[in-house]
């Protein structure tokens, strides 16, 4: 069962809709007990970094989540702010992140743009694969829907599995072992997103 971590942030139902369409068993998980039953996890998230961490703590799932991901090696896919909270911290706030993939979340800076800066980075953009044969299998010319003003900067470059350019080249997907994350929204990326989520169900 794929569990969508429902801590009050992110469009949980969008992931459910896609997995239902694919005929893959999916459930929103809202308690530590439900979390323990999932053999794959999706960690969605929208909004501010500190708010996301506060909501995750309030949910009462954080200890079980850490255990499932760090000890039981359950595959997890973080999406957007769900990716960003896997870092140690963010320029957007003061809260500590989950620290699953060492790094920091930074804001796009005006000086990176030749012309007028528009944030959020909103819309479809190309995703260049660095090392993502499994997640991006069968997805030629990958392009995905982005909606963010901050990006994940991992300490270890080898954790970057895909890159995208918006003013500067940033990590649009990262991976460390069983921990995967995308800055873009596969649940809003049409056939490419459906393909990526199908691939994640098999990693």
């Amino acid at each position: 069962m794929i569990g969508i971590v429902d801590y009050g942030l992110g469009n949980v139902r969008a992931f459910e809709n896609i997995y239902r369409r694919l005929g893959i068993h999916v459930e929103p998980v809202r308690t530590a007990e439900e979390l323990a039953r999932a053999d794959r996890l999706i960690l969605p998230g929208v909004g501010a970094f500190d708010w996301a961490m506060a909501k995750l703590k309030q949910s009462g799932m954080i200890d079980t989540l850490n255990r499932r991901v760090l000890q039981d090696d359950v595959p997890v896919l973080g999406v957007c702010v769900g990716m960003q909270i896997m870092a140690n911290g963010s320029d957007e706030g003061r809260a500590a992140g989950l620290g699953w993939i060492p790094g920091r979340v930074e804001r796009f800076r005006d000086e990176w743009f030749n012309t007028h800066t528009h944030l959020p980075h909103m819309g479809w953009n190309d995703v260049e694969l660095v090392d993502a044969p499994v997640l991006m299998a069968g997805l030629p010319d990958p392009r995905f829907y982005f909606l963010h003003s901050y990006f994940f900067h991992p300490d270890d470059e080898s954790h970057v599995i895909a890159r995208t350019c918006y003013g500067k080249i940033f990590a649009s997907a990262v991976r460390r072992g069983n921990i995967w994350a995308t800055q873009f929204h596969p649940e809003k990326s049409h056939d490419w997103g459906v393909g990526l989520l199908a691939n994640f169900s098999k990693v």
Partner: protein
Amino acid sequence: MLKTRIIPCLDVADGRVVKGVNFVDLRDAGDPVDAARAYDAAGADEICFLDIHATHENRGTMFDVVTRTAEQCFIPLTVGGGVRTVADVRALLLAGADKVSFNSAAVANPDVVAEAADQFGSQCIVCAIDAKTVQPGRWEIFTHGGRKTTGIDAVEFATMIAAKGAGEILLTSMDRDGTKAGFNLPLTRAIADAVDIPVIASGGVGTLDHLVEGVTEGHASAVLAASIFHFGTFTVGQAKAHMAAAGIPVRI
């Protein structure tokens, strides 16, 4: 490279598409969900629903439309029309909308945009601005479908509402809407250059060149159109091919 978005917009009243949609293979031209599915399949980058007769009494119909669309279309969905409060935003997001658009409520009370952005994040809060040229180089906001002037300068309002936390502006040139004469380009450009958030150009599209101009001359990040797509004048695919030929990056 970031692609310019093409967004078909559907006007919905009491759960039905107003004016209908002329597509082959559409089972029910008046069903917004069917129309949204057709646009999704045709390559639309996002879909926008405007609930044109939104009241508290008939809201439920729109929630149902939004939920059913989200179940079948895996692209972003913006919903606007009659959104007044933070509770309205929450209800539409829970129904399955990805972004929610304020219009006259933001003019009456700009702080509602700030409140909504604080709670849900700027990324899902759109502010729709309906503006008309009142003299060369000056545009004012109109409400109530373009009938009521407010005397508010559109560029100043756009800058202020972006600072309040709107994540995107849906700019409709009311003096062009329905004319097929093209976007009001000076207005579009004035606002797109004044704010740091994406601007969607809307109102007046009659040809594919108009879409191109909205980006090259209007500096819009996205273009929204209704009738050219609904009546089958052009497909989303033709629009994208035309924009690509003009050197604008699009998702094909």
